[in-house]
């Protein structure tokens, strides 16, 4: 097996592992706060991956200084823009999830989603 590709792209591999960690946390954790932490890890891993794809070794951030306009000087700005948009999206869904968690906690005094389900079934509504 050829490991040189993996070694050259180890940061991408890290991003994928982080994505996996976040994904499984969001899916399998019972605690709602841990789920939300998982969600954030998952999103951040995607942004890491995107930022890596836009980065070109030895170049600068795409802000024109000193009148240098050559394309060769700067990194690809589009992934950075996508990351910014993505961050806005993930902030809003995190806020929504947290507010829902607060509502559920005030009502049922627990953060465990399975326990909430059992309580709901007991309520029988």
């Amino acid at each position: 097996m050829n490991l040189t590709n993996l070694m050259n792209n180890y940061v991408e591999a890290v991003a994928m592992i982080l994505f996996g960690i976040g994904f499984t946390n969001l899916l399998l954790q019972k605690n709602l706060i841990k789920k939300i932490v998982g969600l954030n890890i998952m999103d951040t891993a995607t942004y890491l991956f995107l930022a890596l794809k836009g980065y070109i070794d030895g170049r600068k951030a795409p802000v024109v200084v000193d009148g240098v306009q050559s394309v060769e000087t700067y990194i690809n700005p589009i992934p950075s823009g996508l990351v910014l948009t993505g961050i806005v999206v993930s902030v809003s869904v995190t806020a929504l999830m947290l507010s829902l968690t607060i509502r559920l906690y005030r009502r049922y005094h627990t953060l465990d989603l399975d326990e909430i389900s059992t309580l709901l079934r007991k309520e029988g509504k």
Partner: protein
Amino acid sequence: MDFVQNFPFMSIILSLFSGPLSSILSGKWAKRVNTAVIVIIGIMSACVLGYVTGTGEEFIYCMGHFPAPWGNEIRVGELEAFMAVFFCAIMLLSMLGGIKERLTQIEESKQNLYYIMVNLLLCSLLALIYTNDLFTAYVFVEINTISACGLIMIRQNGRTFEAAIRYMIMSLLGSGLLLLGICFLYSVTGHLLMSNIRQQVQLLAASGEYHIPLLVALGLMSVGLAIKSALYPFHSWLPDAYGYSTVSSAAILSSLVSKGYIFLLIKIFYRVIGFEMVCDSKVIHVLYVFGIMGMIMGSVNAIQENNIRRMIAFSSVAQIGYIYMGLGLGTEAGVVASVYHVLSHAATKSLLFVAASGLTDASGGKVRFEDLRGAGYRHRLAGIAFTVGSLSMVGLPMFSGFISKLLFSQEAVGHNHKMLPTLIALAVSTVLNAVYFMKTVIMIYMPASKDTEASRQGRNIAMAEQPGKSVALICFIILNLMLGLSSEPIIHLIQNGLEMFY
């Protein structure tokens, strides 16, 4: 450029801005603004549909007049315009059918918030239909998720909060996968516009490079959107979300929200990856298998259910299974059948939800089957509408469900490996559908015994008492019969529209 070509962009912007506008209006005015917006957008989309059928070719609208690889684009073909008209019609009728429930089930101070959500939902659906840019599609997928979550939890009780949080968790898993798929595709092709990606993908397919990353990207996007549209093993949030939210929300969620994602997936198949390449990959077999499982298991779960609204919700799982089964056949006609089933299911499921709420109104708000005894006599129109919806779901001729089943089985007959499983699954699923829907229809037409609690709480409801619901039900029945009796032009339109996707 003709003036009509501005309409798709205008309708997205109009619904987007009417959302924040509703936040400063009172509930009553927010409702009026919402109705007006839906009607105006419906009319504009109809104009666009007329225009596109007239010219016979799609048009591309450059946002901000930046040309292709840099700017953002809206792309309108026949199918997109038709979907926009259809979604507006269903949304208008679903809102009309639940006026009274919304007034009683949503707190007075939160009335206008509901309409913000509906406007934003319409905006995101339109954007999903029209956009030609994958990242824009992702952003609007998230807007769609957030507003759908708002629609679920606006009726405040423990069940809806739990349903909303489960819905959010599943949706976020799905959109995480979708975003990762888009990132993969971007890093391989260097584009975000669908048409540009398609050119690059064709070049890559010809040279054989990056085969595995493309396959992974396709798989991630398909699974992500399948999770979001509640394909079988990912449906755990669905019965609670549809079963306990207010009736307009349930109708809109079941018939529009999940369909928006499916439409995006079809667009990705055709316009981003290319349908031949999708068919060559193994991804469609996975969708096919899960679709078949959904068709059977959704119906089995629905049979076990004792709550009429949860039963209808589980039936949605089965119908989503049909749609993915059609996509999984991997032929042009299979996709046509799937798109037709999207239409037929949207028209029927919202009809069933509205009719079921009429029946429960006539039974003192009870949702269990034993309490619904004789409800068809107490609320005659709802009874008839429920029967029509049930017959359509079972697939009797004359109704819309029959046509989609016919298309599915016609397509399956010509298929080599997938013929037998498809036909068996269709047959089994039809029988199971018949079991639970006919059971309900028989139950609502059984004379109620005098001394049960339900018949004491139940009361007769005349058509004039709930004008909104009556009009909505009649329109839904007509829509259903139209889809069932004159399917030829619609199928033709879908075929044309899919050809325009290339």
